[in-house]
């Protein structure tokens, strides 16, 4: 963007007479063409797996097995969607994911915003210490085994808290929020103080309403993290009725791949092909909520990420 501005400053027109600026030398035009092609290729590579999965979800098991499905459904049908939709285990897992995502994001947002607000006040005594204990955890973590021991000792195994609580503060998100709060004009808070609001009142009535973009970003980040998480559930949950949909999908995939590698036998391959179908549908249904929110929050998250990381 900046380069563009620089380039539109009056410059000697070389080569083509239609547009102005040294950009339009023959070499640059060639570069632009190549660049466009490269970027289109990048897009194609990024999108291809999605397209294949969508195509497979609408295809007949036979066509997938025969290796006919790439970009376009072959033997179009909705039977797989029907089959998955009637699967009670799937919907229970889906419901669990929604619940974990909602609760987890709520708890995470409360902890993150309050902590970020406290450490965003430059005058706060002990602020360095508070920031320090948070940042240190970015570079040194306890590791899987002690975490597992801790969760077991707290009696949280086979409860949803094992999935919800450990992820509740992401230090990266915390620092982004802190940077945002620091960037708010101080005069507003001072004025509120004169009007007799305490810190908590300022936080709720002045700061939070001004922080909608960053809150939207953080809600997106946390909810995507909870929505996508499978490992905590895999470690701490044994009861199928507690599984989130990602773990359900993982078990589906793991089951299918064992079947596929075990049996070159005809029966084995059929099972694998059928579950390729079901896998595709489950994957689509798991991605869809993210795809639906994505376009609306995109403008927020880009600014949110930049805020946390670029300081001038």
């Amino acid at each position, binding site marked *: 963007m900046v380069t563009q501005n620089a380039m539109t400053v009056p410059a000697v027109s070389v080569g083509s007479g239609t547009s102005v600026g040294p950009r339009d030398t023959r070499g640059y035009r060639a570069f632009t063409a190549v660049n466009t092609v490269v970027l289109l290729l990048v897009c194609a590579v990024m999108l291809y*797996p999605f397209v294949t999965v969508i195509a497979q979800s609408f295809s007949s098991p036979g066509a997938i097995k025969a290796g006919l499905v790439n970009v376009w459904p072959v033997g179009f049908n909705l039977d797989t969607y029907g089959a998955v939709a009637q699967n009670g285990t799937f919907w229970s897992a889906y419901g669990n994911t929604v619940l974990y995502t909602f609760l987890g994001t709520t708890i995470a947002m409360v902890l993150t915003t309050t902590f970020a607000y406290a450490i965003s006040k430059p005058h706060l005594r002990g602020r360095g210490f508070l920031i320090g204990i948070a940042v240190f955890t970015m570079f040194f973590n306890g590791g899987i085994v*002690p975490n597992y021991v801790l969760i077991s000792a707290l009696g949280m195994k086979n409860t949803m808290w094992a999935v919800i609580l450990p992820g509740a503060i992401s230090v990266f998100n915390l620092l982004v929020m802190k940077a945002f709060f620091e960037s708010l004009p101080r005069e507003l808070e001072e004025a509120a103080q004169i009007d007799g609001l305490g810190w908590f009142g300022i936080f709720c009535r002045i700061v939070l309403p001004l922080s909608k973009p960053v809150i939207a970003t953080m809600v997106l980040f946390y909810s995507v993290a909870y929505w996508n998480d499978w490992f905590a559930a895999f470690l701490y949950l044994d009861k199928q009725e507690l599984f989130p949909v990602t773990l359900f999908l993982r078990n589906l995939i793991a089951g299918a791949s064992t079947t596929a590698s075990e049996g070159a036998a005809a029966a084995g391959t059929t099972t694998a092909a059928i579950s390729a179908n079901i896998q595709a549908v489950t*994957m689509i249904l798991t991605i869809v909520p993210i795809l639906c929110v994505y376009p609306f929050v995109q403008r927020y998250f880009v600014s949110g990420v930049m805020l946390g990381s670029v300081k001038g």
Partner: protein
Amino acid sequence: MSVTREREPAGLVAEPAVGRRRWNTGARGSHGYKVPWRDVWRRDGALYLMAVLPVVFLLIFRYGPMVGNIIAFRRFRPGGSIFGEEWVGTLYIDMFINDPMFWHVFGNTAIIGLLTLIVGFPLPIVLALLLNEVRKKAFKRVVQSISYLPHFLSVVIVAGMVMQLLSLQGTVNQIAEALGGEAVPFLQRPEWFRAIYVGSEVWQTLGWGTILYLAALTTVDASLYEAARIDGANRWRQTWHVTLPGIRPTMITLLILNIGTFLNVGFEKVLLLYSPLTYATGDVISTYLYRVGLVSNNLSYAAAIGLFQACIGLVMVLSANFISRRMTGASLW
């Protein structure tokens, strides 16, 4: 809320100018002497109260496990104390140092981590530079939106996609067969595991990785380009001498962070993609300690390995940061 409001008169509220000076004075009052804690509490009690829950959270769920690493030096009995039963010194440390399997997975981890770093670090920079040259805003935005998308997928879904694309009936094998090759069960071949891992990692992180660089690119001073052009620099030279130095701090910061997490090779993805058939190249420290610790229930031994890994990570960040500060002046802190 009401509590703080009552306490207000004691502390902050004054005319704006005074208020502002006080906000900036840190632990010292406007007269230069240290404000007693009682007054600090009166002024900022609400802020400390807001920090209480998060700090308790960090202490339990982050520092708890750190302290829990003590079981690397103590015998641990499942169901017993989470801090173990009795001291055994460096028994478990010696155990993994003398374990050839450990060094095997250590090597695998280092190779996969290094490949990911070498391939995955420069590509977002290249993509960001290419995007930066795009003049049509709408096209740029579409490319960005599409390339960010994989970042939001669960690793389970990425693994599922990888498996489908690489299956015997998958697209990759179809292309191979069309070109006259034979179908390969890629995920069962150790020689392919690293490529698969790095490839899927790049697929997922490439677009997202450009965000910070694109942000940094907008901060490069436009007049520098003009000056370079007057000096006769062509586009390529402008990129080399103006753009790249302009985003160097961002590059260094991200490099340090990447080096620090270098041994934490995407554990979950490996766990989803590997199988006993690909242990030869795919088994990494985290998956090994997962199997030893949580599958075979040898928790102390696994904790020792995990502690070792975490310490290496910390040392790597600290040294990368130190070297970068010495050589380029840029550092994380």
